């Protein structure tokens, strides 16, 4: 049932054969990278390790969203990726400023 739902999705309609294989490989590699970053998020002995791994999670999620935009051949995923990037940067900067100063805006 899941297989026939997945086969009806409008995915991989306009990509060539090499790009199709490359997209599957890239999704697997990004999944492994996300899991490694999650390991550091759980394990990191200090809070700055966790902030860095959150920022890396944001960047990897941005890349996966762009890859999904290539796979589905629409450009609606680009705006989502832009929002992910901006929110990730703002969150990281706010947390770092709070840790170094105790205050976000003086």
């Amino acid at each position, binding site marked *: 049932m899941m297989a026939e739902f997945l086969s009806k999705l409008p995915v991989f309609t306009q990509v060539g054969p*090499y790009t199709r294989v490359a997209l599957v490989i890239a999704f697997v590699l990004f999944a492994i990278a996300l899991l490694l970053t999650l390991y550091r998020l759980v394990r990191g002995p200090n809070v700055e390790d966790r902030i860095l791994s959150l920022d890396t999670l944001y960047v990897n999620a941005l890349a996966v969203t762009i890859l999904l935009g290539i796979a589905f051949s629409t450009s609606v995923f680009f705006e989502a990726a832009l929002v992910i990037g901006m929110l990730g*940067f703002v969150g990281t900067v706010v947390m770092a400023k709070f840790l170094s100063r105790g205050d976000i805006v003086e």
Partner: protein
Amino acid sequence: MMPIWLDIVIAALIVIGASFALVGAFGLAKLSDFLKRLHGPTKASTLGVGCVLIASILYFTFVNKSPSAHELLITIFIFMTAPVSAHLLVKAALAMHKGMQPPPPRS
């Protein structure tokens, strides 16, 4: 539909970008000190996302038959903000742990 050379270029860029991101995350997971762990995400993951975004520019320029540089915006944004966030994280870490700074070189 798509010329073979463009297909191979996009596929190569996507795989190279994904492997750079994997190397960056592996460096983040494996290294032993926070100041060493900063190198992976700031350089390798940024390069990986940049490669994937260049592949996306090429793909959407071909599919939409008109030059689309939307993803260049994200690339420039990430290239500008990744060093800034790393710098602020180092400042926060040095403010919290006083003994983390390596000793200055002997003059």
